[in-house]
């Protein structure tokens, strides 16, 4: 398999960044890691469990959809879309890589969302196999093998070398573009690393979490569960879970008057927010219980119902570590699976 020595990773990043924008996970002062645009000298974080997911690069928190010029009674629509530039997101975890399968089902289904597709067409996702699964991880619950990540290019590190395998045409083009830096390598030690990771996976606290009790056929059963009241009682409706979630894709569309025309933009939104469904004549989800239930029902029941059983969660664990009141999808699953 093609590989590069870990010492040479900076050379690789430089070579990529010369041709296109490169984003890599880097350490923050507070110990967390986050994606940053690569600049010379920047170091790859040893912690790939980034604060925010790679969703941001394809479905940004805010984006301009169209502009309008208003003059008297006349309106001019200005199509501001332009072809995105090529970019690479390096070091995406297997769970986050799977989130694109889910986001694709939403944004690339008819009618195709051209804003998202534009970035998907121009972005290359380079994944990195997990070697440090955290206590909050439960990707295996959703059938994800963190040692065999998806993505345009999959990478593995055995501590000494990073190995590359192209999964798509775009991924092959990427590997070809840096092939001068790569050499053939022996994967014996890599197999040991994978085995070690799998051993950790088996011992994780959430290793036995099951999706058996969920799916599209359990709609009314779970919707009517009396457990939602207790589960949602302490929810603040802050929306943190939604914003750090790699699969949450609800959005709002709003207009902004710049003083020199109107910008129509979309931004992330959350079904946990009280005004999400509020209309002039009322709100269909007046209580936090209803809004809380909507988010989890969507991931565990409604989404699988419409997508051949695929769940709207990848087990990345971000909501577990970030929720200010320590409520999360795992607690919901465990509560609901008990009859």
């Amino acid at each position, binding site marked *: 398999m093609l590989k590069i020595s870990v010492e040479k990773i900076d050379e690789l990043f430089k070579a990529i960044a010369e041709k296109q924008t490169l984003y890599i996970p880097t350490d923050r002062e507070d110990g967390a890691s986050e994606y940053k645009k690569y600049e010379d000298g920047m170091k790859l974080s040893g912690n790939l469990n980034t604060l925010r997911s790679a969703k941001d690069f394809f479905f940004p928190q805010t984006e301009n959809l169209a502009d309008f010029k208003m003059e008297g009674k006349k309106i001019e*629509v200005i199509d501001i879309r*332009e072809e995105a530039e090529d970019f690479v997101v390096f070091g995406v975890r297997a769970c986050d890589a799977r989130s694109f399968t889910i986001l694709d089902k939403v944004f690339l289904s008819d009618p195709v969302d051209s804003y998202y*597709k534009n970035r998907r067409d121009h972005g290359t996702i380079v994944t990195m196999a997990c070697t440090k699964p955290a206590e909050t991880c439960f990707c295996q619950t959703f059938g994800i093998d963190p040692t065999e990540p998806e993505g345009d290019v999959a990478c593995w590190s055995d501590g000494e070398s990073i190995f590359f395998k192209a999964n798509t045409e775009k991924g092959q083009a990427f590997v070809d573009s840096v092939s001068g830096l790569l050499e053939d390598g022996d994967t014996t030690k890599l197999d040991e690393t994978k085995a070690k990771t799998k051993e950790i996976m088996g011992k994780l606290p959430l290793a036995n979490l099951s999706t058996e009790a969920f799916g599209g056929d359990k709609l009314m059963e779970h919707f009517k569960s009396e457990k939602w009241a207790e589960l949602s009682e302490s929810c603040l409706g802050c929306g943190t879970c939604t914003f750090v979630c790699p699969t949450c894709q609800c959005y709002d569309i709003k*207009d902004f008057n710049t003083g020199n025309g109107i910008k129509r933009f979309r931004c992330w*939104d959350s079904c946990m927010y009280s005004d999400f469904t509020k209309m002039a004549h009322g709100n269909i989800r007046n209580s936090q219980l*209803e809004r809380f239930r909507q988010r989890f029902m969507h991931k565990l029941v409604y989404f699988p119902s419409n997508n051949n059983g695929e769940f709207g969660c990848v087990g990345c664990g971000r909501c577990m570590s970030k929720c200010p009141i320590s409520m999360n999808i795992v607690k919901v699953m465990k509560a609901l699976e008990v009859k």
Partner: protein
Amino acid sequence: MNAIDTLIPHIGVVTDIRQDTPDVKTFRVNAIQPDGTASGKVFEHMPGQCAMLSIPGVGEGMFSITSSPTNNEFMEFSIKKCGCLTSWLHAMEVGQQITIRGPYGNNFPVETELKGKDLLFIAGGIGLAPLRSVINYVRDNRENYGDVQIIYGSRSKDDLVDYQEIINEWEADPNIQVNLTIDREQEGWDGHVGFVPNYVKELNPSLSKTVLICGPPIMIKFTLAGLKELGFTETQVYTTMELRMKCAVGKCGRCNIGDKYVCKDGPVFRFDQLDELPDEY
């Protein structure tokens, strides 16, 4: 990149505004032709489908297309003033341009399940707006349908939407039975007085009829209960729903109820289909 995106709207121009009731106006909308003149429709639709209308800078909202697809001259929207966007729409003058995109959602199954059937339309207040498209479609294709009866009620005589069309065209049509009612006695009104659900029961419509119902949620609830008492089943009653929407194509998540999106799987549902959904509408 895709040449078009459904989120980027077309421009329409308001060519006529009719004050139907104290809080409902009906707007006539035309497309702008390449030579700059206003004529024709911005796009084709089926009865029950909706469009996203917007005044940039104010907001965008989903409205049912009130005119029938058989009308080739223009599109119409009956809109009740009840919030921010609708207040702005009500303040428009003829000649104002708006943005419009669509058509969105499914439609009343006028060419399939409803074909050849006896039809009973039940509407309350602004609930007539989406049904008017179907009623006029049925009138223009009268040979394809059996008996047609319209039961329509509102708070007062002044709150009946499209009143002139109702008395000039629908009541004058010998092939249609029209039953109007208002909630309370009113000077100058010699028609029926009483709430729609009770009036439906009094009229005791034939069980052969397929029912299309739209109005305030409370009216729908009691009318449906009344219809069931009369022997109607949920499989013969259709309604159309209204929820907050942003994208109109099942992606923004806003109108999601159960595994359905009202914008694309609805807005038209049969009551037996609604039974399978959480009661969140």
